């Protein structure tokens, strides 16, 4: 009887190795309904098909559910697999489980959000460069010395910090005056309230850079009800469908698109390379594109 079980186990192991390499993409939130994660997922699946490897996609139910993401990865390490592309919900909280994967000989790369583990490649948007792109666009439309404002995201997150720093550096580099920096915590209603306060305190501002489109859309509402939308240009970040519609309608002026599909695709490619023993660069930029009226249609 024991022999039979052993034989069975051996067979299972053999058949396991006979199958294609198995990679996990663990995202911050579910792809269903969120176009961003859906695109990351699609990019990874396409690349998996192209390279003939198996790609599994998982995520915690919400982006704040750090514990669920840790548990998923622990479970997958226990099952055994050939690589993990991880978008960490909380870089520090996920660090131990990433170390555990590496200790088990499983290659790991970060996609979208950089983790805190040393020596793990990050594949994602250079948010500072993206925010700079938005700032340069604003610079090109305004006179030197004009007053501008920044709506920050959650400033304790690296993405929030990078977008705040990149935009501020870009706006100041071309001689614009940043008179207000307030947080809208990525939230539409909070962004709207922050914008109302900014225009009350600084009636002369000519442009606002919002660190994401939700806050940019809130800023548009604030400017509309103050009757100032014609005087103040609003540039967001993310190019989500609502923002694309708003750009086409002439409410928002522009936004910045990330390339989430690249994140999934480059992520799987990097894991396959690592598995084959190749070395990959520590940071792989997936690129950003400025979206205004001329190209907003494709982001609707």
């Amino acid at each position, binding site marked *: 009887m024991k022999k039979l079980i052993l034989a069975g186990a051996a067979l299972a192991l053999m058949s396991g190795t006979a199958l294609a390499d198995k990679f996990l993409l663990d995202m911050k*939130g579910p792809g*269903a309904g969120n176009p961003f994660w859906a695109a990351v997922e699609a990019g990874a699946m396409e690349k998996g098909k192209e390279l003939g490897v198996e790609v599994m996609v998982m995520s915690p139910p*919400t982006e704040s559910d750090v514990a669920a993401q840790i548990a998923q990865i622990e479970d997958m390490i226990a099952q055994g697999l050939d690589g993990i592309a991880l978008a960490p919900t909380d870089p520090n909280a996920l660090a131990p489980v990433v170390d555990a994967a590496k200790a088990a000989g499983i290659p790991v790369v970060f996609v979208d959000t950089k983790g805190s583990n040393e020596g793990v490649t990050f594949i994602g948007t250079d948010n500072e460069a993206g925010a700079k792109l938005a700032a340069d666009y604003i610079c090109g439309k305004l006179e030197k010395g004009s007053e501008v404002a920044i709506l920050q995201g959650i400033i304790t997150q690296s993405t929030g910090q990078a977008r705040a720093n990149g935009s501020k550096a870009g706006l100041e580099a071309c001689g614009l005056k940043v008179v207000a920096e307030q947080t809208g915590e990525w939230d539409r209603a909070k962004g709207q309230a922050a914008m*109302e306060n900014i225009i*009350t*305190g600084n009636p002369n501002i000519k442009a606002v850079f919002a660190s994401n489109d*939700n806050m940019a859309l809130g800023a548009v509402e604030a400017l509309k*009800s103050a009757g*100032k939308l014609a005087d103040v240009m609003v540039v967001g970040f993310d190019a989500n469908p*609502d923002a694309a519609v708003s750009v086409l309608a002439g409410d928002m002026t522009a936004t910045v698109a990330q390339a989430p599909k690249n994140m999934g695709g480059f992520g799987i490619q990097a894991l396959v390379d690592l598995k084959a023993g190749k070395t990959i660069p520590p940071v792989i930029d997936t690129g950003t594109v400025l979206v205004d009226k001329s190209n907003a249609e494709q982001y609707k």
Partner: protein
Amino acid sequence: MLGNSPRISSFLEHYGIVVIVVAMMAFLYASRPDVFMSLANLTNIIKQNATLALLALGMFVVIVTAGIDLSVGSVMALGMMCLAVTAKAGVPWPIVILIGPLVGITAGLVNGLGLTVLRLPHPFIMTLGTLNIARGLSSLITEGAPVSGLGREVRYLGQANYDFGFFPPPTGLPASLFVVGISAVGMWFFLNRTSMGRHIFAIGGNPHAARVSGINVDRVLVYVYAISGFFAGLGGLLLAGRTDSGFPLAGQNAELDAIAAVIIGGASFFGGRGTVLGVMAGVLIMGLMRNGLNLNNVSPFWQQILIGLVIIAAVYIDVLRRHAAVRR
């Protein structure tokens, strides 16, 4: 000192909180004289705190019964999502604007019935459950995507602004102010002039005595949570109108802001005590503090710390006042 004069101490007992509001306004005026008292800024303060005021009114009734309703932020988001989706589906606006409050009442009934029929030991548990359920449902409806573009009539209560031919255009009295005003007066009348209102205070003061004296405690509690849900749903209607959007993450931690406003306003966590005026003052204190700190470009981290300190200080002042009153 002040406590020695019964007139002054009685005045402070009832209106001390209003004095604090006035003092805060004077302080903010001194810090940004150019901006704080501008019509635009005062309009902003009203618009930004209308939703919190409604949530706090609902929370207040619950806290008077020595209960708690942790679900209000999530229920508000659920109401927003439901009305946004139906508005987008082309349902006529008179029905759409009822959906927020109806979703809220339904969630409140679930809370109340869960508490009384399932005999859960504390409303914390039932409403912690519905906090999660309502948040999950909010996201489930559109798989997490926000819904924008609700139409003029649906947005009216959250968006309209009356200038009365007197205020310069962007400023004025927002419709949401009237919603809050009517709600507050209605709540005052309900709590102070109806038998149900008196029963609510009686239950909070001493549930056992209330039961013995023939009050149907369970029935009153179901009503109380339904009222809280109603205000959460109405808050959702205002916020959806204001932002022209239903988004599933709306109102995260709003329940804590509502609780803070009620407690700052002098209501007792142990039930049976508090006034509508105090709650409105509590909302204003929270709102004025955020506004003033924003206008002075104070970091949001300091804002959190200060709000925490104000919660503690407000209740401590209340404790001192109560002590003085007992000694007298």
